[in-house]
C-alpha cells in the first residue's frame, strides 16, 4: 500500500473519510467493480434484434393472457366449472399440502442442526459440522434438489417435499442458531447448577428463551415453502407449477394468467398470515 502518503507526509487539505483502506484502494475498488460490470454486460452478448423480436412476441403473449380463464363460468345451471378450474384447485391443494408437510418435517430436522450450529452450546467439532450443513443446504436451490430428486424418485409431490425439507436447515437452522447464540447464559447456568443433564439444560434452560422465535421462524419458513412449492412443479416435483408450464407449452395463455393470479393471491395471503403471526408471538 502507498505508505508514503499515509505516514510520510501530512495531507494539507480535508478529504472525505472513506471506508476503504485509503483513497487509492477506494478508486481501485471502484475501477475494478466497473470493469467487472462492463465485462459482464459484454460477455452476456444480448443482441438488439432479440429485443425487437421480443416486443412482437410480448404483445401476442399478453394479448392471449387477457381475459384470464379460471375455468369458472355462469351457465344455464348456475356456476359451471370445467377441467381448468379443477386443475387449479388440485394443483393449489397439493401446493398447500406440500408446504405444510415440508415445514413440519423440515423444522423438526432443523432444530437439532440449529443446536449443533450454535457456537455457545455445541462443542467445537460439532459446531463446524452444523455450520457446514447450514452452508451446504443454503447453497443448493430447492429447484436443483427438486430436479435431481424427480429423476431419483419419479414425478410428484414426494420429490418436492423432500427438496423443501432439504432446503429448510439453510434458513431455519441458521437463524435459530443465531438466536441460540444470543440467549441469556445465566439461566442456562442456573439449570445446569441444579444437576440437570445436557438434555434437561436444553429443554428447561434454552428452549423457553427461544420458543417465541421458534414459532415465528416456523411460520416464516412455511411462507417461504409456500412460495417455493408453487414453482417446484416446473421441474415436475408436484404442485401448481406443473399446470403452469403445461399451459405455457400448449399456448393456453389465458389459463396461464389465471394460474399466475391464483399463485400471487396465495403467496400474498401466506405472507400476510406469516407477518401477522410473527407480530403476535414476538
Amino acid at each position, binding site marked *: 500500500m502507498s505508505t508514503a502518503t499515509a505516514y510520510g507526509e501530512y495531507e494539507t487539505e480535508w478529504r472525505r473519510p472513506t471506508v476503504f483502506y485509503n483513497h487509492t484502494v477506494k478508486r481501485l475498488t471502484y475501477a475494478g467493480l466497473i470493469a467487472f460490470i462492463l465485462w459482464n454486460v459484454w460477455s452476456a452478448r444480448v443482441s438488439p434484434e432479440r429485443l425487437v423480436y421480443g416486443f412482437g412476441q410480448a404483445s401476442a403473449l399478453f394479448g392471449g393472457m387477457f381475459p384470464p380463464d379460471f375455468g369458472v363460468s355462469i351457465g344455464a345451471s348456475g356456476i359451471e366449472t370445467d377441467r381448468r378450474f379443477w386443475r387449479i384447485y388440485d394443483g393449489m391443494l397439493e401446493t398447500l399440502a406440500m408446504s405444510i408437510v415440508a415445514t413440519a418435517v423440515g423444522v423438526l430436522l432443523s432444530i437439532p442442526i440449529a443446536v449443533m450450529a450454535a457456537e455457545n452450546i455445541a462443542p467445537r467439532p460439532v459446531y463446524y459440522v452444523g455450520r457446514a450443513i447450514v452452508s451446504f443446504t443454503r447453497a443448493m436451490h430447492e429447484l436443483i434438489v427438486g*430436479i435431481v430428486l424427480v429423476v431419483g*424418485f419419479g414425478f410428484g409431490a414426494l420429490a418436492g417435499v423432500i427438496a423443501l425439507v432439504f432446503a429448510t436447515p439453510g434458513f431455519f437452522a441458521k437463524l435459530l442458531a443465531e438466536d441460540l447464540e444470543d440467549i441469556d447464559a445465566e439461566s442456562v447456568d442456573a439449570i445446569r447448577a441444579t444437576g440437570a443433564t445436557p438434555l434437561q439444560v436444553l429443554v428447561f434452560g434454552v428452549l423457553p428463551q427461544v420458543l417465541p422465535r421458534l414459532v415465528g421462524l416456523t411460520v416464516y419458513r412455511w411462507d417461504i415453502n409456500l412460495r417455493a412449492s*408453487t414453482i417446484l412443479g416446473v421441474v415436475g416435483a408436484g404442485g401448481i407449477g406443473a399446470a403452469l408450464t403445461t399451459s405455457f407449452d400448449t399456448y393456453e395463455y389465458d389459463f396461464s394468467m389465471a394460474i399466475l393470479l391464483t399463485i400471487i393471491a396465495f403467496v400474498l395471503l401466506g405472507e400476510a398470515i406469516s407477518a401477522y403471526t410473527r407480530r403476535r408471538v414476538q
Partner: protein
Amino acid sequence: MGTVDADQSTSEATDRPGSATTERPKTWERYDGRTRLLRFLGLLGALVLVALSYQALNVRYDYVATAPENIRNLLGRMYPPDIAYSGAIVEPMIHTVNIAVVGTIFAILLALPVAYMGAENVTPNRGTYALGKFLIVATRSVHSIIYALIFVIIFGAGVLAGILAITFRSIGFIAKLLSEEIEEIDETAIEAVSATGANRLDVVIYGVVPQVKAAFVGISVYRWDINVREATVIGLVGAGGIGVELNNRISAFDWQAVLTILLAILVVVLVSEGLSAYARRKIR
C-alpha cells in the same frame, strides 16, 4: 419474572373452581389455565393441519420405502464426479454470473425510483406512494423462475430472458428494503436542505442519499448474492446459464457430470456469498 408472581396471586385471590391452579395451589405454574388452553389448541390445530396435508398428498408408501435405496443408488451413480467434464461448464457458469450481475444492475436502476415512491416520508403524493407499494408487491410476489418462463416465451431461450427474469424479481426486493431504509432517515437533514431553497432533486441528492448510501450498497450486494443462486436455476426453463447444462446432463442421465455441475454451483454460490458477507461487514 414479575408477571408470574402476579398471575399466581390473582389466581389464588379469585379462586376459580375447576381451574388447575386451585387444585394444586402450592405448585408453581408457568401459565394460567386460559393461556395453556390456547397454546394447547394452537398446537392441536397445527398437528391436525399437518395430518390433513399429509393425507392430501397421497404419499405412495412404496416410494417412501424405496427412497433410501434410491438415494444411495443415485449417489453411487454420481460418484466419482466427472473431472474431465469440468472444462465444458466454465462458459455456462460465466453466463450464470453475467446474468446475476447484469440483472442486479438493471434491477437497481429500476428499483431506485420505485423505492423513492414507496417511502412514505419522501414520496411526492398519495398516488405515487400507492404506485410504489403496488410495484413492490407485484414484482416481489412472482418467483424468478416464473418470470423466466414468461421471458423465454417472449425473447426465446437464452441469457436475455434470464437477465430480465432476475431483474424483475429483484426490483421489489431492493425497492422494499431501500424504502424502509429511507423511512428511517433523520428528517431534520431533509428540512435543512429544503430550507436552503433546494428543489426536490437536490433534497434527494444531499438530504436522502448520504443517509442511505451504506444501506443501499449492502442491499445491492446482498441481492446480487441471492441472484447468483437464482441464476443457477432459471436455466432449467431455458433462460441461460448453468441450469441449461444441468438440465441437459440430467436428461442424458449423465450423473457423474451432474455431480460436477452441482459441485461447481456449490463453489460459485459459496464464494459469492462470502464476498457479499465480507462487503456488507466492511460497510457497516
